[in-house]
């Protein structure tokens, strides 16, 4: 395939060893997290960094972590935020993508470029004026304010427009002859055919907003409305002050576990979605 070097056996072995070594170094922080999270407290101190699991694993760190922060509440808030954003996005991007892909109207190119501007002027740059707007609307310290700046997505509109454009018009013409209205055409013809793009966008959107930190940190003051990342930050800062590394490892693990499970199960889907997100 493509530009490959024909390797002799020793060269192939050397390649395997080098790549394996880099892989292990790269995963070092995660290996440490897993090992340290099961390490008994008394093991702290000088040997804390060892990734060799030469001890009886304990769940003590997890128990302590689970009690030190309201992870259930943090999880619920995060789920509300990511799926709240996604459901509004799916509506706004589908409608806009349909207009840009199928309809003719004045200033179409200009409006399209106006949409694309959001790819560059990304929301984190506008935290100061956006916070002012939301405070003015009486929405400060609410989950709606955490979601609102992301309800429209230039990236999603663009991705879906490209997909709609690649679908032959014949399908819609046939549906029109059968008496379908525009909503039925979208619902039964275009959206099913655009499923791979919708899945890719959904995965990228959920991961991006699950991981978001700066904006929820600015918007939310009440502890009961915090998202996972904001909760983890204050949790980790407290544990760091006490130099309780096992506790940080366990807390980080609790936050990352769903991601690790989802990625292990749907690895291909994740990789493809992120790859898809770059194909313009």
């Amino acid at each position, binding site marked *: 395939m493509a530009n490959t070097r024909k390797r002799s056996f020793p060269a192939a072995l050397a390649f395997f060893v080098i790549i394996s070594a880099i892989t292990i170094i790269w995963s*070092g922080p995660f290996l440490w997290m897993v090992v340290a999270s099961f390490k008994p407290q008394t093991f702290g101190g000088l040997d804390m960094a060892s990734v060799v699991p030469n001890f009886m694993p304990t769940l003590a760190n997890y128990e302590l972590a689970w009690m030190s922060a309201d992870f259930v509440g943090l999880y619920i808030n995060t789920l509300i935020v990511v799926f709240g954003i996604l459901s509004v996005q799916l509506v706004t991007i589908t409608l806009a993508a349909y207009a840009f892909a199928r309809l003719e109207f004045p200033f179409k190119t200009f*409006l399209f470029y106006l949409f694309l*501007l959001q790819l560059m*002027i990304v929301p984190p740059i*506008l935290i*100061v*004026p956006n916070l002012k707007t939301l405070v003015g609307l009486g929405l400060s310290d609410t989950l709606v304010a955490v979601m609102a700046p992301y309800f*429209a997505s230039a990236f999603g509109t663009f991705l879906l427009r490209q997909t709609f454009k690649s679908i032959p018009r014949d399908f819609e013409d046939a549906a029109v002859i059968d008496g379908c209205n525009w909503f039925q055409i979208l619902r039964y013809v275009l959206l099913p055919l655009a499923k791979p793009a919708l899945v890719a966008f959904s995965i990228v959107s959920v991961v991006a907003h699950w991981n978001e930190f*700066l904006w929820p940190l600015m918007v939310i003051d009440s502890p009961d409305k915090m998202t996972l990342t904001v909760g983890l930050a204050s949790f980790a800062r407290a544990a760091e002050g006490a130099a309780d590394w096992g506790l940080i490892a366990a807390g980080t693990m609790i936050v990352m576990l769903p991601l690790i499970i989802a990625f292990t199960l749907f690895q291909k889907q*994740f990789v493809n979605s992120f790859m898809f997100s770059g194909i313009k």
Partner: protein
Amino acid sequence: MSSGIKVWLYLTPALFFLVMFTYYPMVQVLWDSFFFKAYGQETASFVGFDNYARLFRDPEFGVAVKNNIIYAVGTVIPSLAVGFGLALALMESTRFKNFARAIFFFPTLVPLIAAAALWIFVYFPNIGLLDYYLAKIGIGSTNWLGDSDIALFSMMLLSIWKNAGFYMLFYIAGLQGIGEEYYEAAELEGASYFQRLRYITLPLLGPTTAFVFIIALIHVFTYVDHVIMMTKGGPIGSTNLVLYYIFQNAHEFNDAAKATTSTVVSVIALLAFSFFSIRTMERGIHYES
């Protein structure tokens, strides 16, 4: 339903939120940057460009801009190089290579704040992960985050680790898109592996590199979670970045004038960069066709 009304029905939901949270704030922040509200004053008064003069006189802002440029260069170029190298090594699909790809890609998926929480320990002097294992090969302890000469480089290393696997994916896609016939022709001419890399692979990956470069550059100006978590811009301002400066003035110092004015400067810089990069991207795509 007339088609004119129909178009607006489709566009309004998206346009409404874009106006509200992208276009309007850009105008609002520009307007606000010409006003100053002193402590205890009821209304803000028009001050012209005074806020800009005050911003540019603030040495901390200059330091943040300088740091951000160093951080951008020191993060973007190595991450692209590492991403490209990994893609070359792992482009064929085998069980082992797919597994390695997943390992390199995984840091992209985790929250930056979780990565930062782990890397506080990685960088912890003496007992931390890095010093512990470096000591085994005879390298003494380093104050990775506490030494103002090193802290920014430590942040770069974390960002490279976090993002190189993401860029690797685009390079793998790019490499797989290069037609076999180029390499066959080159091989007939007796071109070596490195000659093929230099004269076929790299030029044909121009559009990929342009695209990845833009994503990477936006990334270094819009993510400061690790700065908030690990260093708070210190020690002595050595890891202060522009967005952190904005955040700190808005959230901690309550200096609205500096927060708005530095936002305007960032928006203008990003707009200028957008115009430049759209042209570069177009050139890159023309090259391909």
